[in-house]
């Protein structure tokens, strides 16, 4: 399953964002930020206690099952009283959840987290970015490994000179995508695919911001 991967903002930055706002409703998310341990129940409780120490009044707190879902308004209804007493909602969800909440309530929805990437859970506590939704999928030619995402430079025609014994020049913990692609294609007996020259990428397949309207009757 794909996950929105987050990290907590420094607490000082959260306080800065909440300056002048004393009564806070605190909301985590039961899905991605629970898995990332950035906005599940333990993190929400810890944040409530830290805000309390700084003199903030937490009018209510909850972990919304899926903060980016439109059902968020039902969660708001369930905590009507606590929301009405709050001056802001501090969201311990990804930016999708923040924006969903912002549409549901009149209050400012303030992020307590930074959203890093849309990733895949590779094991407990391990998340990798494997697709950046470029609009022009090359996986059929690259052994099922995306160079647009997994190569730091997004190179289409093979490794750069910074590849170092299978690792990336920016971080020895990160694999060189093109070494992985090479090994995979070699194993599949399809190295010829790696010899294919990729012409210049279209960076505007779906010009930002993406917007699709299906012709449904």
């Amino acid at each position, binding site marked *: 399953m794909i996950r929105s991967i987050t990290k907590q903002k420094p607490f000082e930055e959260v306080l800065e964002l909440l300056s002048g706002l004393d009564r806070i409703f605190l909301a985590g998310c039961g899905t991605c930020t629970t898995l990332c341990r950035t906005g599940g129940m333990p993190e929400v409780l810890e944040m409530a206690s830290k805000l309390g120490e700084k003199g903030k009044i937490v009018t209510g707190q909850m972990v919304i099952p899926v903060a980016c879902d439109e059902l968020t308004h039902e969660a708001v209804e369930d905590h009507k009283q606590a929301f009405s007493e709050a001056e802001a909602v501090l969201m311990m969800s990804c930016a999708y959840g923040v924006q969903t909440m912002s549409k549901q309530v009149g209050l400012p929805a303030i992020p307590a987290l930074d959203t890093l990437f849309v990733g895949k859970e590779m094991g407990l506590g391990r998340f990798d970015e494997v697709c950046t939704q470029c609009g022009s999928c090359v996986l059929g030619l690259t052994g099922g490994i995306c160079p647009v995402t997994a190569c730091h430079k997004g190179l289409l025609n093979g490794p750069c000179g910074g590849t170092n014994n299978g690792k990336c020049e920016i971080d020895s913990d990160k694999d060189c995508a093109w070494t992985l692609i090479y090994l995979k294609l070699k194993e599949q007996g399809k190295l010829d695919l790696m010899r294919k020259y990729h012409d210049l990428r279209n*960076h505007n397949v779906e010009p930002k911001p993406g917007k699709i309207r299906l012709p449904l009757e």
Partner: protein
Amino acid sequence: MNRSFKEVLGSGKFVVTSELGPPKGTNLENMIHHVDLLKDKVDAINVTDHQSSVMRYPSLGGALIVKERGGEPILQMTCRDRNRMALQADLMFAYSRGITNVLCLTGDAVVVGDHKQAKGVFDLDSSQLLTAIRTMESGKDLGGSDLDGAVNFCAGAIVTPEANPIEPQLIKFEKKIAAGAEFIQTQAIYDLDNFKRFMDYARPFGVKIMAGVILLTSWRMAEFMNKNVPGVFVPQPLIEEIKSAPKGGAIAKGVEIAGRMIRRIKEESICDGVHVMAIGKEELVPDILKEAGLANGS
């Protein structure tokens, strides 16, 4: 400097290139001094493009200075900082000012440099930049529009013969040649027997290859490169040789080693020439060439 680099490449002579890194700032005195020192001793001078992603005076500006002072510049162009529009514009500008040699590079990652939060562009890669040049030479830009006045470049690229695994690099090398690379300057090599094996593979492609020679200035530098510079491998006996130099003699030993390597490359016709990188010690390049028996620009 009477002959263009393209003419030199075609002449069959042993080609010698060197390189300069522009300064951080607008004081060009030192760079100009190095241009004057090297311009008649080498066939062409590369000017690096924010090498190691450290922001500096532009390679285009440095290449212009080489040209203005009578040298033959090789403009290094990376894809890190410019999208295809800016790259094409700079290529037109370079050509219009008499800069006709370009070395096409992908470029180091932004995060290894001194502006770590900058956006890395990489709209094109090195092989696509070569394609861009060949497209512009046909009188069209990358958007398919006609150019009123085309360009004409001697374009090159790099290869890392010591990379591990090597095959992905070789596949890329072949793509660069197919995309129009006329010359190749290699990453630094120190093990000539290994390099000979690379040349056995590379020679049939018919592209001119200059072996990269980086001046070793201390055994610590050699160990640092082994640890930190991808695709550079200084064999232990060379490190021991520098260690054995008398106190204060490491640089002289490095000059001797570089000269010896170049001499052997030429004598055994291992490849078509050398690219000498002295990394801040450009004043020693003439000594290296002298040691190699190439005192008068070969």
